[in-house]
């Protein structure tokens, strides 16, 4: 247990860095991935092609290769990014490809008639997406997006390979001194489990809130109360 109790500051710092990596990586993935999905369903062919190429590259490339490529390849191209931001960048590049496909498939679940109806009342391309398609699509995307969140949490551990001082990196460093691999990795496994589980919980709550029956119930109750 010494290995853990003696190194609580380092481990907390590691957990903090992991959380920061995850949050930044996931947030940017959501934004960038949604934009990509918009490109993929847009009526402009070059945008569609560019987004497709992007997705096929970054969805099919192992995170670790991407990380090492960014960490050691970019400086040779003249761009020396701090290692932490290299980690965030890799998570975003990879995560946004998955978010894009999730959002796109979510959009495709909305019947085309809804979009046509929205357009017929005068909404433009973005208006249709913003007010009609995306709110409906989001409901079906909750669980896949939670999966991507968990993937981001777990994927952040790969940043240890390029010396981002996150949880796995700190654990490896501590283990090198204490020779307590089983204990340390049990501990780290539990921490990752908690982080991923918390994400899953949020997803579950969101899904419940957004479920059509619940929305309907709330609506009927309100009508009932008003009557």
């Amino acid at each position, binding site marked *: 247990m010494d290995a853990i109790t003696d190194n609580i500051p380092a481990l907390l710092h590691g957990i903090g860095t992991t959380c920061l990596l995850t949050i930044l990586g996931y947030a940017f993935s959501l934004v960038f991935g949604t934009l990509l999905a918009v490109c993929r369903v847009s009526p402009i062919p070059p945008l569609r092609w560019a987004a*497709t190429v992007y997705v096929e590259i970054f969805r099919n490339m192992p995170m670790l290769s991407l990380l090492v490529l960014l960490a050691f*390849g970019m400086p040779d191209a003249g761009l020396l990014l701090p290692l932490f931001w290299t980690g965030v960048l890799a998570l975003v590049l990879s995560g946004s490809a998955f978010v894009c496909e999730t959002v796109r498939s979510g959009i495709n679940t909305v019947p085309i008639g809804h979009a046509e109806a929205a357009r017929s009342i005068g909404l433009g391309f973005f208006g249709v997406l913003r007010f009609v398609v995306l709110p409906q699509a989001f409901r079906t995307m909750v669980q896949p997006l939670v999966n991507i969140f968990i993937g981001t949490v777990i994927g952040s551990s790969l940043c240890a390979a390029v010396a981002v001082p996150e949880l796995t*990196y700190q654990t490896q460093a501590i283990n090198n001194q204490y020779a307590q691999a089983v204990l340390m990795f049990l501990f780290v496994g539990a921490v990752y489990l908690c982080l991923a589980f918390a994400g899953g919980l949020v997803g579950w709550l969101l899904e419940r809130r957004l479920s059509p029956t619940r929305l309907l119930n709330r609506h009927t109750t309100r009508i009932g109360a008003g009557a």
Partner: protein
Amino acid sequence: MNPSTRPSRRALLGAAALLPVGAALAACSSSGSDAPAIGGSGGSDGGGGSNVGSDYDEIIAGGPVADDATVSGSEWAQGIKEAGKLKRGGTTTGQIFSLKDPSTGKVTGFDAGITQLLAQYILGKDSTEKIDYLDTTVETRETMLQNGTVDVVVATYSITAPRMEKVNFAGPYYSSGAAIQVRSDDDSITSVDDLKGKKITTESASTGYDAIMKHVPDAQDSDIQQFAENDQCIAALKQKRVDAYVLDQSILLSNAVADDSLKVVGEPFTKDPYGIGLSKDHEDSLDFVNGFLQKIYDDGTWAKLWKATIGQVVEGDTPAPPTIGDTAATE
């Protein structure tokens, strides 16, 4: 908005567009790894592709073989003899110490030599093929010894007090020391004191971190970047992510030999004994392996092996072998 898709045409276009981008990425990656491939440094002949002297095989073949009584006197050694294989934990990607030539499958180096000599000592002549080289990492070494996945760990395995609680160490068979590597055009760092406030890299599986924390004045955790591979540490140094690279002197020297843009400054500032890791379940193995080491120390095989491996990059005379049981690291 048109959510319906025409996948076949798009997929085709996507695939076509992917080709040049993939090629560009590949080009990018190759330029990213212009760190020296040290395996080829010593063997400019290309055939061997290894960094060991040409008499390496001869030295191994000339090593001692234990008589039957010695082997049967140790339950551990007898077990290995009956199995007909020595299972060694370590790495086959370590410069100078244990490097596998991908074209021949041959593993050479100082640690590899010690392993091959030990296999020959137990199993008899022509036993260098009877070794299972299993990969162990810093995370797995102790556990793999404890559960018997490997018989020995010979892997630049530094003897430290926490590790001695879990496994036995025969030896030390080599006493190493951490040194400093900098870029050739950097004259600001000449000793460990000059590392104060500098960014430093080291291999994550080494004792470099400890050496830095103990010897560099006011060393900060956040100033140290640990990478898994030597090549990555070199890249970080050359790309100016860090100002210095601290690791075992012999590895740094071989980097400097392979790459003009790197140099080693000063003398080693720690003493770091390497031992052969053994399971505590087989207490008899400790005496047996120590007996083996003493034999290769006495008959000069150890010195020849040193000369053919580490001696290829370290200048000066072959040192005297370390004293067995002298496990104290200078901290």
